[in-house]
């Protein structure tokens, strides 16, 4: 049985449609990456899947008692709230000192447990979020643009860490990213989202799909160049990927 299944999700603010007819299923152990331009509903989809947003139509079925480890896009901790890394890891469930130290080690930030969250660097902070997400031995790890604000070596190292964590725990990974060249190679399956699912499949299939190239072929030339040396697209911004996806 799939860990999570979503059927024909519709979500919008007022008249603005953010998600339209999105269906997907996540199987145990697989790495799925959702790519899409800004405002394509990637974060919204993730938040619907964890239950933070209620879809206006469609349904989300989570496996009974599914353990989700969630790494949010960004976590702003109000400067008036003092909190050490160790205390942060013990929320909402107290896990004890040893489990916290183990998780920090697994996430690649051993030795920060007594520091204030506000004193961490960007990379350390994201790793602490990762450590917190893996504490509950999740069956699925969900990450929302986890490397925002990290430089390229930093984000590459972070993705290697995620890969190591996944091999450790054997959990499924569902992540949202715009860093195509880094994440796609590590994914079992890529979903290209722009309000609806434009195309999906293995990284090779998606990168060759006309709908994908229409979304990313212009404007992200540098990132795409690493993947495919192909710069001969027209600058065509009319999105008619509906047909293209077929």
């Amino acid at each position, binding site marked *: 049985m799939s860990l999570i299944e979503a059927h024909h999700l519709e979500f919008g603010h007022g008249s603005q449609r953010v998600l339209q007819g999105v269906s997907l299923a996540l199987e145990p152990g697989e790495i799925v990456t959702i790519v899409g331009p800004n405002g394509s509903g990637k974060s919204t989809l993730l938040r619907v899947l*964890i239950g*933070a947003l209620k879809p206006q139509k469609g349904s989300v079925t989570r496996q009974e008692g599914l353990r989700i480890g*969630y790494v949010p896009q960004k976590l702003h*901790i109000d400067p008036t*709230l*003092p*909190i050490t890394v160790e205390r942060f890891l013990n929320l*909402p469930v107290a896990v004890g000192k040893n489990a916290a130290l183990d998780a920090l080690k697994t996430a690649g930030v051993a030795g920060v447990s007594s520091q204030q969250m506000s004193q961490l660097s960007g990379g350390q902070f994201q790793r602490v979020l990762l450590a917190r997400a893996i504490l509950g031995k999740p069956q699925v790890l*969900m990450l929302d643009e986890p490397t925002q604000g990290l430089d390229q070596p930093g984000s590459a190292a972070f993705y290697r860490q995620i890969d190591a964590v996944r091999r450790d725990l054997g959990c499924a990974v569902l992540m949202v990213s715009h860093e195509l060249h880094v994440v796609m190679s590590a994914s079992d399956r890529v979903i290209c989202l722009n309000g609806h699912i434009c195309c999906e499949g293995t990284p090779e299939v998606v990168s060759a799909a006309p709908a994908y190239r229409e979304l990313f072929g212009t404007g992200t030339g540098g990132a795409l160049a690493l993947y495919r040396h192909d710069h001969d697209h027209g600058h065509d911004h009319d999105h008619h990927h509906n047909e293209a996806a077929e």
Partner: protein
Amino acid sequence: MLDDFLVRAALAGIGTAIAAGLLGCFVVWRRMAYFGDATAHAAVLGVAIALLFGTSITLGVGVVALAMAMLIHGLSGQGASVDTMLGVLAHGALALGLVAVTLIPGQRIDLDAYLFGDVLSVTRMDIAVIWGGGALVVATLWWHWSAMLTATLNPDLAYAAGINPRREQLVLTLLLAAVVAVAIKVVGALLITALLIIPAAAARNYASTPERMAFLSMGIGALSAIAGLRLAVIFDTSVGPMIICVAALIFALSAVGRGLRGIGT
């Protein structure tokens, strides 16, 4: 012992300050100061209604503060910025209350007692209400501590852990109304927010975890209540504002102390 009005005043002040000091941490962390203001200002309207219908002041204040808090809770769920709306509600309720109090026929009301508190006149019954309400606030926060702290850090983290942050916010809203009802006798409607945020802000300078900040905040609140009462008696001033003056002084000292410590390291 309870026959002495100063002892009664001290007990009332300490009970209120402990509950407000604890809840105040969440008010500071979640930036709810204006929310507290609106709820507290609505209390004056509650006083007017209670006098009009001849019911207990605590009941009237509690009900109106609750209604106001629920209204704001509902508005904040709409996702829009509610800052201006809060301003309108806070001052609208205060003005309406002030007008309504003067319109009540047949009695001249000492409005100062409700705006700035009148802790020297508390009865045994008041103390029972204050400590009962305070115990309720402390017990509820104790019970919800982890969930509420998680929801305060990030709503999505809470959802992912199976906690409903909206429900936690609702609980906070109810507790805020309870604290307002309890505190109006001690510091008055205008200074309740001060009792919520100043001890917590002072505690922030010397705390490394949320729990330590909470305990420090309660301690600073209680200390302010005792010292404020004493100073008010010595200098013959009103007690509520003096309690807040002491709290503000502690905050200033803690900020200076932190600054000096920062230079020293």
